[in-house]
């Protein structure tokens, strides 16, 4: 009986995290637009030079892309070819989805693992960006966070699907 409220709480927590993360991405994009405009105005007028604006813009975009990729994995809205899925029966479609989730889980974990490896080494070397001298660990970490996040949410989706599948076959 205590399981239900916990599940509901987790559910609400998840929705909250997703909501805040989405809004953060939107605000991030608006911020990039403002930096872009300010940078061009400064350069054109000659009033000021925003040295390193290009780094803020590109690294900001990379973080938005990778965090957004986690949300897209959770929504299962990544770009794909959905021909076969539509041709299959409901049951077949579910089986296929399990397979896709497994491949996604493995690939994302694999990338995240090697990404972490890279980031540890780049941190050791202490490489910085050219203009702002930001430690390169900061932008590079976006790739690790993105793929680790994709692996994590895919694992959750996979577990949810499996438990649904088992409870249904137990019932029938």
């Amino acid at each position, binding site marked *: 009986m205590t399981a239900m409220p916990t599940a509901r709480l987790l559910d609400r927590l998840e929705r909250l995290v997703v909501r805040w993360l*989405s*809004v953060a*991405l*939107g*605000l*991030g*994009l*608006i911020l*990039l*637009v*403002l930096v*872009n*405009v300010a*940078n*061009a105005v400064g350069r*054109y007028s000659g009033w000021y030079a925003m040295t390193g604006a*290009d780094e803020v*813009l*590109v690294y900001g*975009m*990379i973080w*938005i*892309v*990778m*965090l*957004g*990729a986690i*949300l*897209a994995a959770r929504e299962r*809205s*990544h*770009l*794909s*070819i*959905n*021909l*076969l*899925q*539509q041709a299959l029966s409901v049951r077949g479609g579910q089986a*296929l989805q399990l*397979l*896709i989730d497994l*491949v*996604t889980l*493995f*690939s*994302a974990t*694999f*990338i995240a693992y*090697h*990404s972490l*490896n*890279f980031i540890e*080494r780049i941190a050791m070397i202490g490489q910085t960006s050219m203009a702002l001298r930001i430690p390169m660990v900061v*932008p*590079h970490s*976006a*790739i*690790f966070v*993105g793929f680790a996040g994709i692996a994590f949410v895919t694992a959750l989706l996979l577990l949810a699907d499996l438990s649904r599948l088992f409870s249904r076959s137990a019932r029938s």
Partner: protein
Amino acid sequence: MSAALGLVVVTLLAIGAPIFVALLAAAAIALLIFDGPPLIALQQTIFGGLDAYALLSVPFFVFAGELMAVSGIADRLIALVRTLFGRVPGSLGVAALGGSTMIGTVCGSSAAAVAAVGRNMYPQLIEAGYGRRRAVGLIASSGAIDIVIPPSIAMILYGMAAEQSIPRLFIAGIIPGLTIALLMALFISYSAKRDGLPSGAAFRLAAVIPALKSSWAALSMPVAVLTGIYTGFFSPTEAGGFAAAYGAVIGLFIYRTLTFKGLVEAAVRAAMLTSRIMVVVAAAGVISWVLTVEGVPQALIAATADAGMSPLAFLLSVNLLLLAIGCVLDPTSAILVLAPLLVPIAVSLGIDPIHFGVVMTVNLAIGMFTPPFGINIFVAQSVLGVSTGDIYRGVLPFMAVQIAALALITLFPALSLMLLNGMS
């Protein structure tokens, strides 16, 4: 090697795995099986695929397109076009094409154009009875014009990789880009008439004044963006950010159709779409990198060079090669890898490297919407919610039209070079 890699990609794509997963899984398997660079290189190439200033035009123009839709700018522009040209068969389809071409003059990214035009024109095309397939095919294929008409990310990269003048490439792209647009317009108009699509109201001067009145602020947006680029106020990449800012200002303060909450919502949708597009771009970069270090493109080209071809045979086989490559690689990585290898052969055969750059660009532009793989297809699917099958069937007639345009552009170098020759 490349066959095994291709098989993994195609299988995973066919079962409907996310495209970035299909590409990365194949790259990872290739790196694991074949003795190559250490696996940490994966991180480096994924990051490298995203770490490019010119790619900022993707989030910016996607956001601008989103804002044009929610603020009613797009509606008013379309209404104006219908008031002016309503009677012309296929006027709305031609307006969508015109929208793509117009965005093409300010934007160098096809994916962003498909998203922006699709978001704005697709519902109206459906409403006007175009049908899902025709509407989606039209939008996905029109986006290709964007990288042929200057500015163009593909041409900037070709210029850098092949040591050719970027301004000359830009100028050389104008007539070929317009040629594609013209053939497309003729086809859209012809097929609309053939299939008896309803046309709009007849032209009435009395209707024009109110349409202009309600759309002047919307009209000022492309004008402002173009003026900004050509006076050097901002670069073509930065133009996307200005377009978004301009759209937001019109929506918030002039039309008052947009609230701050709506602005943030639009930004969230744009960020999400950008994310879906860019992970594919990054993953495609990894595949091209794996192919490059395994020497695949180099070997392909050596085979082409050995065949001892005539210039025309060479151009035709390059066309076939590039159309095929367009199925798996994104144009940016394909150009970086192939241009330095192909251009010396082309030059040795007496082919003008600028003309060759245009031919390459048009090829890869078409590759972006030819099944099975192409970023325009995936963006259209995601933005418009149309099934892949419908898109595949929808793009076919437009593919034929653009391949015809490609044939003209390949056979008549003058189309690319006459503006340049006229200048000097």
